[in-house]
C-alpha cells in the first residue's frame, strides 16, 4: 500500500513551524509502524493494546504541553493538536487514551493540585508508569453533570466517597481516578487510587464503538479518601468543565486524523476499483463525495490551526472550542460514512479502517459534550438565551 503522506490541499504545511512539522511527522511514523499494523486485531477482540502505553510515553505523548520539570516536553498547543490528529489517524481509542491521560488527568493535577500531588503524580503519568482516568459522567447525569449524585463527606481522617460513575475511559486499568463529587453541595475533584477499599472499576462490555479503548464504571462504596487526595484548588463544576475544554480541544484536532484516514482510503480505492467501464473515481457521483470530503478536511484543518494559535496566545474562548469540536466531529462522521459508501461492501471489512473509524466517531461525537450541547453553548453565547432547560 502507498505510504500515507498527509492530506493538505491548501498548503497549510507552510503555516506550521519546523518543530510542529517534525513532531507531527514523528508521531505519524510512530502510528504507521506501531498502531496501524495491530489495531484491527485489538479492535476485533475489544482489547486496548496496553503495550503501547510505554512506547507512547517514551515518545513523550503524555502531558506534552506541561513543564519539563515533570518530564514533559513543553510543547505549544498546535503541536499538541497535531499529536492528537496523528494518533486518531490510527484509532480514536488510542487517541482517547492519550487525551484522558494528558487533558483529563495530568492537566487537572497540574492546574488544581498541590505541589506534593504534582511532584508525585505528574512524572509517573508522563512515563506511563501510572495510568489515570477521569470520572464525571454518572448513569443518570451525562449532559448535565451538575446534577451528579456522587458525594464526599468530611470525616475525621479525610473524606468518605459514595456514588457511581459510568462511561469512564481507562477506568479499569487506571492507577488513579480524578473523581468529581459534591462536598457540602460544591463539586470538588478527588484523587482516588486503585485498590482503595470500597472502590471498584468493572469494565463495560458490548461496545460497538471505541472497542480498542477501555470503558468502565467506577463504584464508590464508603471509600475513605485521605485529606491529601483532595485537589485543593477545585471549587466547583467549572473546574471539571475546564478539563473538558482541554480534552475537547484535542478532539477537534484528533478527528481530523480519522477524516484523513478515511479520505485517503476512499480516494485510493476509488482510483483502482473498476465498475462498468471505468474506475469509480471517474464517475461524477464519486467525485462529488471525494471533493466534499477534502473540502471539509481543509476547513477543519484551518479551523484547528487558528484555534491552536489563539490558545497559544491565551485568547481562546471556550465557545470557539465548542464550535470546532461540534463541527469537526460531525464532519468526521459524515466523511467516514461516505468513505464506507465508496468502498461498497469492502467498506464493512476490517481490511480497511473506515468502518472502525465510523463506529468510533459515534462515541467521539457524543463524549466531551454531545453535538447538541455544543449547539446550545454557542447558541447561548450568540443570543444571550440559555436554552439548556
Amino acid at each position: 500500500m502507498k505510504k500515507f503522506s498527509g492530506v493538505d490541499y491548501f498548503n497549510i504545511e507552510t503555516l506550521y513551524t519546523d518543530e510542529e512539522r517534525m513532531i507531527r511527522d514523528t508521531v505519524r511514523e510512530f502510528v504507521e509502524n506501531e498502531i496501524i499494523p495491530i489495531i484491527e486485531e485489538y479492535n476485533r477482540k475489544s482489547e486496548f493494546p496496553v503495550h503501547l502505553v510505554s512506547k507512547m510515553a517514551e515518545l513523550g505523548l503524555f502531558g506534552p504541553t506541561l513543564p519539563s520539570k515533570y518530564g514533559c516536553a513543553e510543547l505549544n498547543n498546535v503541536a499538541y493538536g497535531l499529536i492528537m490528529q496523528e494518533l486518531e489517524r490510527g484509532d480514536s481509542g488510542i487517541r482517547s487514551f492519550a487525551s484522558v491521560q494528558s487533558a483529563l488527568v495530568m492537566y487537572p493535577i497540574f492546574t488544581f493540585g498541590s505541589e506534593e500531588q504534582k511532584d508525585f503524580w505528574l512524572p509517573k503519568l508522563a512515563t506511563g508508569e501510572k495510568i489515570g482516568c477521569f470520572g464525571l459522567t454518572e448513569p443518570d447525569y451525562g449532559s448535565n453533570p451538575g446534577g451528579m449524585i456522587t458525594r464526599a463527606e468530611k470525616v475525621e481522617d479525610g473524606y468518605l466517597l459514595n456514588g457511581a460513575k459510568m462511561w469512564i475511559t481507562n477506568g479499569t486499568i487506571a492507577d488513579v481516578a480524578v473523581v468529581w463529587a459534591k462536598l457540602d453541595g460544591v463539586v470538588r475533584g478527588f484523587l482516588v487510587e486503585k485498590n482503595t477499599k470500597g472502590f471498584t472499576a468493572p469494565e463495560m462490555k458490548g461496545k460497538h464503538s471505541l472497542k480498542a479503548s477501555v470503558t468502565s464504571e467506577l463504584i464508590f462504596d464508603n471509600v475513605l479518601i485521605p485529606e491529601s487526595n483532595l485537589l485543593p484548588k477545585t471549587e466547583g463544576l467549572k473546574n471539571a468543565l475546564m478539563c473538558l475544554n482541554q480534552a475537547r480541544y484535542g478532539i477537534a484536532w484528533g478527528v481530523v486524523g480519522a477524516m484523513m484516514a478515511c479520505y485517503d482510503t476512499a480516494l485510493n480505492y476509488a482510483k483502482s476499483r473498476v465498475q462498468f467501464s471505468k474506475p469509480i473515481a471517474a464517475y461524477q457521483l464519486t467525485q462529488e463525495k471525494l471533493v466534499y470530503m477534502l473540502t471539509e478536511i481543509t476547513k477543519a484543518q484551518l479551523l484547528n490551526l487558528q484555534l491552536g494559535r489563539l490558545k497559544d496566545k491565551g485568547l481562546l474562548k471556550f465557545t470557539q472550542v465548542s464550535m470546532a469540536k461540534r463541527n469537526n466531529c460531525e464532519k468526521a462522521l459524515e466523511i467516514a460514512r461516505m468513505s464506507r459508501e465508496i468502498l461498497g461492501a469492502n467498506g464493512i471489512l476490517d481490511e480497511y479502517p473506515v468502518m472502525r473509524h465510523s463506529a468510533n466517531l459515534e462515541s467521539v461525537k457524543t463524549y466531551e459534550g454531545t453535538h447538541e450541547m455544543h449547539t446550545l453553548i454557542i447558541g447561548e453565547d450568540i443570543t444571550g438565551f440559555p436554552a439548556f432547560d
Partner: protein
Amino acid sequence: MKIAVCISQVPDTATRIKIGSDHKSIDPNGVTYIINPYDEFAIEEALKTKEKIGGDSIVYVISVGDDSVKETLRKALAMGADEAVLLKSSSAKDSIGIAKALAEEIKSLGCELVFCGKQSVDYDSGITGQLIAEMLDYNCVSVVVDFKLEGNKITAEREIEGGREVVETELPAVITAQKGLNEPRYASLKGIMAAKKKIIAEKPAVDSSSFTEILDMHLPPSKQPGRILGTDKSAVPELVRLLREEAKVI
C-alpha cells in the same frame, strides 16, 4: 570519546523520481528527503555506544550538502546527537570528494570512532565509510550487524555471503552499519524541542577534484507487458525457443 556519524539525506523511498532537464541529476521538485535509512542505524549505534561508555562522550553528526540538509541534521539531533556539522558544498561531489570532506572534518574534530551507513540508497556507491577509513588510516569494519566496544577493542559481526563473520579490531575505526544492527529510536518530543537549541555548525567542505563524472542519467526502461504462449504443455517448445533465441537466458 568523540564519536562521528556521517549521514546523508536521500529521496523518500516512496518518491517517484524524475530526471532533471540536464539528464545528469534528479529533479528535486516535489521530492521529500529523509535520513538515509542505513544512517539511522549508524546514529542509533553511536547513541547506544555513548550511553554505554558514558562520561563526556560527544556524538557529532556530519553531512556534506546544501542548506536543505539542515532538516535532516536536525532530525539526528532530535534523536539525541549532541552537535551537527554541515559541510557546505555547492557543486556535486563524487564519493571520493564527499569522503575527503568528511575525513577532514573527522580529523579536525578528533573523532576516534566513526559510524556510517553501509551505503546510501540514492547513488548506492557503498564506499564512503571505507574511503574515510583509508584516508584517515583508521581500521574499518563494513556491513556490521553487531557491534561491541570494550576499552579500545572492537568486536563486530558482519554479514557475508551466506553467513556472518566476527571481526576484532581496535580504535580508531570506521564502522558501516547494516540493517539488523539495532532498532533506531524515534526522536522523542523532548528531543525535538532540545534539538531546537543545538547548534548546526556550517563550514565550507574542502575542495577536491572529482574522479568520476556523471555523463547521463536515465530511468530504467518501462516493463514490457508479459506474453502468454499457451496454457498447456504444447507451449513448452516455443517457450524454450524464445528463452534461448529472444531472451537469450538459457
